[in-house]
């Protein structure tokens, strides 16, 4: 009985300690942001690996999600003779929810796992300790550029996802299902609001980018420096990152559209 209680206490303390370390880590990394501006080349290199290399999966997923939304939505809307609203449905679901959320999930899987593995291996091979020996702060030199690149890349990726989804939906709706071209766009423009829908979608994607990248770099930095530890940290990034995206999405949606 007492042993069980002790185990529970130890777990709780471990979680609290890890949370605290995560926040101190965040504070320290954010402190390194001003020093990055004169050396923006570091961020650009990371934007390449975080953003450009994620582009293919984001673009293809966006296109297909949009096409499937149009196909499925058509089946329901055709019963009410409201197929002109297909554009509204596709655009609103993409801009408000699917762009940021599916984009965030893919981002956690594609870019987050790579970040964790990279930083984790740097730690396991003691490159980070070597930097500290040379009086270079690895949090500023290694983690901060990756963090900033993640925050910058995520909204752009989500926007590309949504835009390609709308285009995919357009091809299926107008090209395949014979929805009227003009009605598709005009209904969409009448119902989608710049502030209410698009801006809120962008805010969501910035929040998701921040949280997923934070989890990814912290898992990498805080990893147990063995090959097993790195593999576990990478899995943790994907699982915790995805859960954080889904949970935060509910909260943000309730705040924004509730």
């Amino acid at each position, binding site marked *: 009985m007492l042993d069980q209680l002790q185990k529970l206490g130890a777990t709780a303390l471990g979680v609290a300690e890890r949370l605290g370390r995560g926040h101190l880590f965040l504070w320290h990394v954010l402190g390194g942001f001003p020093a990055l501006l004169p050396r923006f080349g570091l961020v*650009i290199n990371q934007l390449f690996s975080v953003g450009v290399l994620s582009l293919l999966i984001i673009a293809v997923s966006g296109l297909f999600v949009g096409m499937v939304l149009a196909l499925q939505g058509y089946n329901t809307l055709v019963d009410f003779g409201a197929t002109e609203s297909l554009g509204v449905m596709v655009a609103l679901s993409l801009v408000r929810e699917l762009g940021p959320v599916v984009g965030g999930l893919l981002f956690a899987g594609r870019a987050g796992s790579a970040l964790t593995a990279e930083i984790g291996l740097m730690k396991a091979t003691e490159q980070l300790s070597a930097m500290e020996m040379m009086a270079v702060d690895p949090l500023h030199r290694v983690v901060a550029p990756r963090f900033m690149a993640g925050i910058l890349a995520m909204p752009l990726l989500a926007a590309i996802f949504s835009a390609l989804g709308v285009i995919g939906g357009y091809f299926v709706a107008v090209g395949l299902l014979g929805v009227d071209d003009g009605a598709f766009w005009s209904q969409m423009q009448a119902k989608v*609001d710049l502030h209410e829908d698009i801006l809120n979608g962008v805010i969501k994607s910035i929040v998701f980018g921040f949280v997923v990248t934070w989890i990814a770099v912290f898992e990498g930095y805080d990893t147990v420096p063995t090959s097993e530890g790195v593999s576990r940290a990478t899995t943790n990034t994907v699982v915790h990152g995805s859960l954080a995206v889904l949970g935060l999405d509910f909260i943000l949606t309730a705040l924004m559209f509730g």
Partner: protein
Amino acid sequence: MMHSRSVQIWVGLFVVAGLAALLMLSMKVSNISAFTETEGYEVSAHFENIGGLKVRSPVTMAGVVVGRVASIGFDKDSYEAVVTLNIQNEYDNIPEDSSASIFTAGLLGEQYIGLEAGGAEEVLKAGSELELTQSAIVLEQIIGQFLVSQADKE
């Protein structure tokens, strides 16, 4: 790092693609003119019942959108709804005695305000009030009246 020039070109392309996507979303998908609509003048109108009218519902004249509903309030003295209409500045020759009615777009569509031009020389200005108004048609009331009239016949 690998060839830094090609990395930079790729990142440049990525940023351009992302911004282009944002631009497309705001220009092509949403109605960016929502920003310019705020430039207009406000007139008010009292309605006995506004039904399902909402803020930002369209105000139309001959079916053309000339403005939006800016706010909806409640008049404590007359127990009526006070609706403020924001009409775009370019429509500055609407007669003062025009009437405002609340219509429904289609059978189940959203509600909007339709203006009908009157014959007065004076035109609506900021702060004017539309005197002639017609409330929203509430479907339940009409069905109720219909049932009562059927019952009277028998």
